């Protein structure tokens, strides 16, 4: 059984096919990096697996069961939209709020839940950080605290949506390293989306590349090639490999870097 299966999935949003008859599988315990241009559907794909976006045709299965909302088998880390960056609450309180946040009625934090929160924070190395205000943490520190939320409930698939965005290289490395460690220690499959391949390239088992409604999965050296990416981008793409670093070029422009810059631009206006 695989952790996540897309079987000829078509997703249509606003009259546009985000995915058209895309098929791929993420194996259990596997670390998959998901790449693709802005608007290629990385977030939409995750939301579909969470049962939040309807599929026009095809089927999505999570650990052999159809995708449904509120699936406890999935740990999710949405893209950080900055809503909580101004808060004075401690990281621990934020994590606790999510751990018991789905329950109505008079709910108190029991001992087992407290222990699980501490354990999850320990796993990502954020036990100490979580004592501080979430608003006082740096972007990288905050990502670690928020990542711990994805571990609660012992999921078998964790999906992380652009956790590296607006982090400096040192923090990018620590987030990727911790994701890799979680994958190995907890035997959990991880789907990790990113703008750039290079921070991930040494950590991931396989890469899932999205573009033009297609999804291609495979080893990095098989997928990140001129012919495959040219097809996905619908433009002439050249891949330059220097040691274990990849540069995806369209003409003279570094496509991945360029996508990143655009996104930063959008953020400053948000």
């Amino acid at each position, binding site marked *: 059984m695989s952790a996540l299966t897309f079987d000829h999935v078509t997703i249509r949003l606003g009259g546009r096919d985000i995915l058209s008859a895309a098929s791929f599988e993420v194996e259990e315990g596997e670390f998959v990096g998901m790449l693709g241009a802005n608007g290629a559907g990385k977030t939409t794909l995750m*939301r579909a697996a*969470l049962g*939040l976006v309807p599929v026009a045709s095809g089927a999505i299965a999570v650990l052999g069961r159809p995708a449904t*909302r*509120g699936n406890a088998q*999935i740990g*999710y*880390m*949405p*893209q950080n*939209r900055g*809503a*909580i960056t101004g*808060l*004075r*609450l*401690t990281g621990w*309180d*934020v994590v606790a*709020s*999510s751990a*018991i*946040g*789905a*329950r*109505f*009625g*008079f*709910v108190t934090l029991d001992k087992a839940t407290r222990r699980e929160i501490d354990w999850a924070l320990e796993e990502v190395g954020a036990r100490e950080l979580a004592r501080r*205000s979430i608003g006082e943490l740096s972007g990288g520190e905050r990502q670690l605290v928020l990542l711990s*939320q994805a571990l609660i409930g012992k999921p078998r698939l964790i999906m992380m949506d652009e956790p590296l965005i607006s982090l400096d290289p040192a923090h990018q490395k620590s987030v990727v390293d911790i994701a890799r460690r979680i994958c190995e220690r907890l035997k959990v499959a991880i789907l990790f989306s990113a703008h750039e391949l290079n921070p991930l390239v040494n950590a991931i088992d396989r890469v899932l590349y999205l573009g033009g409604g297609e999804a291609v999965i495979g080893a990095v050296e098989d997928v990140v090639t001129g012919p495959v990416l040219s097809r996905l981008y619908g433009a002439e793409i050249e891949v330059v490999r220097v040691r274990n670093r990849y540069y995806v070029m369209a003409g003279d422009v570094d496509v991945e870097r360029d996508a990143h810059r655009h996104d930063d631009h959008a953020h400053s206006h948000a």
Partner: protein
Amino acid sequence: MLEYDFMRTAFVASGLAAVLAGTVGFFLVLRGQTFAGHALSHVGFTGATGAILFGLSPLAGLVGFTFVAGIGMGLFGEKLATRDVAVGMMLSLALGLGLLFLHFYTAAATQAAALLFGNVLGVDSSALLTLAVLAVVSLVALAMIIRPLIFASLESELAEARGVPVRFVSVAFLAIVAVAVAECAQIVGVLLVFTLMVGPAAAAQNFSRALIGGVLLAAGLALAEAWGGLTLAFYTDWPTSFWITALSGLVYLMSLVARFQVR
């Protein structure tokens, strides 16, 4: 001061409204929806003046109108950007309508003043009972949704993914806000609802980093400000609403000082 019947009633009424307002206000501030609370109070003005015009109880008009408007607001406003304009339009439209109702109801000057600036000393025992029932029902309802509300306020996308009915929670919360606004308007008037709903809650979030502790602190501050204002008004013969706003402003100022000294 407590030997007077009207003072005892005023203490109970303002205490109920303050605890509800402080508690609800904490989440209003947390969610960045204080403007919605402000607008709801103006809608309440329309409801109350309309009720007077048609010979109904202003309290019924106040509660009814804010409640419906709160639910409407929850159902509509999804995106923050559009919400500001939508809420603002509703606010001015409501005030305009209220003005029209007042225009038709000729003997309205004192009624209007009471609505706009509150008249806690004019609360009678039947109104007190209504206030008490509404406050208890609202607080129980809030307690029932408190965990999903906190989760959805902090991380709405994650909450949605975990199966929290985010929209329902948002609508239910604004309905509770609406009742709290109506209660508050009885004490400090529709124009000054901010002072009991937002002031103590914002101050509590400056004083404390705790979550549930912060909620209790907000309720406690609101209660202290309401009772303090009432006491000061009794001895000075100045308006209660003035004293409550003065205390609320003072406490907020102190909270700012406390927050920046800690840093």
